[in-house]
């Protein structure tokens, strides 16, 4: 099994709203795969289709070599899911929910359960209605991570966690990767994906816009330049590969396509560089670019 998840040309509409419009997604076995997109892009819908909670209108989805709709309950023994907005049974304690979900997946490791409760600093005796959003999320995370499964589907799992717990979460995911589990991590927090994922898929409005390893994507990126010149100048705008130029007196900020970086630098030195700062491309910018270009195209 080379791919844990393979989604091809997936479509799903709710009434007139097109939630998924030809989505493609491939998650290889043993990798941590980032699933990125702005709110409402279709991340949760995709995961729900993969869980067999929603039936796709057209296209194909394969999960652990099975059909997520037809073989739902058998496949679910081999995976664990953490929803983005965790709702617990109000009259069940956190510990009861963890045990219930674990048993329903075919058992969980009691040692790991104890260990995770300690690491997440979670009191399992509180009733579901008494937990805060972050603590509800921890309950779902402990239940998922303490189960012995091949695949973890995590839908914005850290949206309610404080920075300390977020760090704890990253550490645990890194351990999971070492032990060979496959993880699909949906997120709109890019630093999280950057820190954890081998490959990413970026979606927007139900379509896949980019997919690949982070290294492969770097070449698509721009570098941000912040430069102080000797004289105010109008030449920068004409240089190839320059975008989003802003000039204030002698001070210019702009972005440049990485492939044109050298040419631009050469020309800049001719203008008398006083001070130059550049910062490396981040996924944030990649993401914003995809998002903004879509807005601009309308």
């Amino acid at each position: 099994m080379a791919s844990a998840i393979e989604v091809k040309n997936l479509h799903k509409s709710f009434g007139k709203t097109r939630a998924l419009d030809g989505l493609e997604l491939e998650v290889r076995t043993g990798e941590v795969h980032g699933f990125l997109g702005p709110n409402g892009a279709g991340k949760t819908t995709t995961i729900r289709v993969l869980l067999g909670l929603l039936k796709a209108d057209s296209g194909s989805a394969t999960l652990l070599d099975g059909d997520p709709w037809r073989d739902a309950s058998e496949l679910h023994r081999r995976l664990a899911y953490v929803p983005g907005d965790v709702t617990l049974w109000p009259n069940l304690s956190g510990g009861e929910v963890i045990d219930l979900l674990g048993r329903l997946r075919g058992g969980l490791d009691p040692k790991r359960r104890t260990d995770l409760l300690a690491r997440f600093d979670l009191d399992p005796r509180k009733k579901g209605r008494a937990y805060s959003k972050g603590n509800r999320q921890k309950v779902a995370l402990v239940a998922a991570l303490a189960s012995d499964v091949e695949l973890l589907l995590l839908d914005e799992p850290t949206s309610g966690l404080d920075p300390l717990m977020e760090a704890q979460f990253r550490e645990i995911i890194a351990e999971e990767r070492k032990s060979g589990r496959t993880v699909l991590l949906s997120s709109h927090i890019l630093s999280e994906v950057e820190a954890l994922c081998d490959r990413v898929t970026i979606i927007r409005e139900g379509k896949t816009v980019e997919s690949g390893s982070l290294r492969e994507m770097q070449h698509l990126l721009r570098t941000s330049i912040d430069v102080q010149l000797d004289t105010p100048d109008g030449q920068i705008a004409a240089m190839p590969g320059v975008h989003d130029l802003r000039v204030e007196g002698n001070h210019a900020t702009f972005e440049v396509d990485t492939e044109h970086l050298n040419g631009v630098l050469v020309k800049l030195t001719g203008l008398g560089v006083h001070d130059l700062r550049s910062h490396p491309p981040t996924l944030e910018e990649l993401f914003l670019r995809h998002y903004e270009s879509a807005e601009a195209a309308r």
Partner: protein
Amino acid sequence: MKDLLNTWRLTLLALRRDRWIMAIWIFIIGITPASLVSTVKAVYPTLAARTGYMNLTNSNPAFLANYGPIYAPTVGAVSAQRSGTMPLIIALAALLTVIRHTRTDEEQGRRELVEAGVVGRQSSLAAAVIATSIASLVLGVLTTALLVAQGLPLAGSIALGAAYAATGVLYAGLGGSVAQLSQTAGGARGLGISILAATLLFRAVGDARMGGSGAWLSWLSPVHWAHQLRPYAGEQWWVLLLFAGAFIVFAAAAFALNAQRDLGAGILPARLGRAGAPGYLGNPLGLAWRQQRALLWSWVIGMAVMGLFFGAIGNSVGQLATSSAGITNLVDKLGGRGALVDQFFGFMMTALGLAVSAYAVQAALRARREEAEGRAEPLLSTAATRWGFAGSHLVFAIVGPAIALATAGVVAGLAYGATAGNTGAEVWRLLGAAFIQLPAVYVLAGVAVALFGLVPRWASLAWGVMGAAVFVGIFGPLLNASQWILDLSPFTHLPRVPGGEITVAPLAWLAAIAVALMAVGLVGFRRRDVTGG
């Protein structure tokens, strides 16, 4: 006044949120007495006819327990008595409305959002009570106006409208109190409905013993107060003071409790749970048991209490029938003493069957509630199947009503047997009469399951179907509705037992319809998307 800052804005918000549901119950309840007037005029056109009917009713404990007595042989008084269950329905509507706008809001975090704004500590509670009271007053005015339009005397029409409005206002205050006691909306509703059941029982038992010992029990029930305003029968306006006094007590208690407690807290404390799950909590059925058991126990207890009361007064129904020569004559015409007792129990079992169908619908809709509130998603993303999830809740919609009705039948049989003798036989007879209701109950549960499976967003329509069945059951015969309308309710098709003959065919048909509806619902759920609210 700082505590009540911006109450009026919140009141408008509550009215805005409830505009449809309020309009519906105000309309349905408001037109009922007026729509009964023409039937009463047609069936009992003369004073003599009405006097005869009055004497018959007032000497029949089954009628008395169901609707209360008739206080004068006027068209208005007969119509008012026939709509005698209305105050109970108004009380229920008021109670649920106030709880929804107080404890439910608090439980779901909306009150926190509101109270972080410029509002007083008591504003949310006050707004809920005021909005419900406004709805009750509108109902009262509508009732009065429609009765006057039917040509009935003004004073009596005002009295009946005032009785309805006062009942609504009183139970709004009571709802405000119970909402403070329990930390959850479900708990508050349970508490409120238990109180309502008690008021029903006190009135039913007291009225059934009218003129005898124990008749004073009725006065413990505000529904009886509504009757005691005596519309069109020498209005007793002072009864309104009772309503006012009780409202002040309940409202003061509500505000006092609300002032003392923290947001989100109840007066009854919340406890820590277990650190791990007990053995049974490892499959969908175990989870459904955990979700459903409180409801099951409360119905079993409620049905035991109902069975006890009705069983205990069954014998006095028989005694009353032989207490005076005139009545004995009348009773002989109706089929003798035994027939009168049978008729009484027949009425009671139908009423309990209708009540239990509310339980069946609630238990069946639990699966939808789990789904709408997002708890089906984590469950169904495990190895739990759709069948397992939906089927587990259906088990409780099937077994629960059977246990509840069996409890009522057995307890009624024991209580009746203890006073009238022949306990063993009475238990079997009344258990049978209780079980006969089940096919009709299951049809309504089946409607809920089918809606859940096919059109989940409309699943609560099952309550409308159930309400229609109750309405047809109670008011259909009074309105002289044509047979096809009566036939729409599954309860119409049940044999009248005890006393009547048991025919198997209609029971088998109802059971088959119920099974078909449930199967359609389960298959539909397997094939559709899991959706949110």
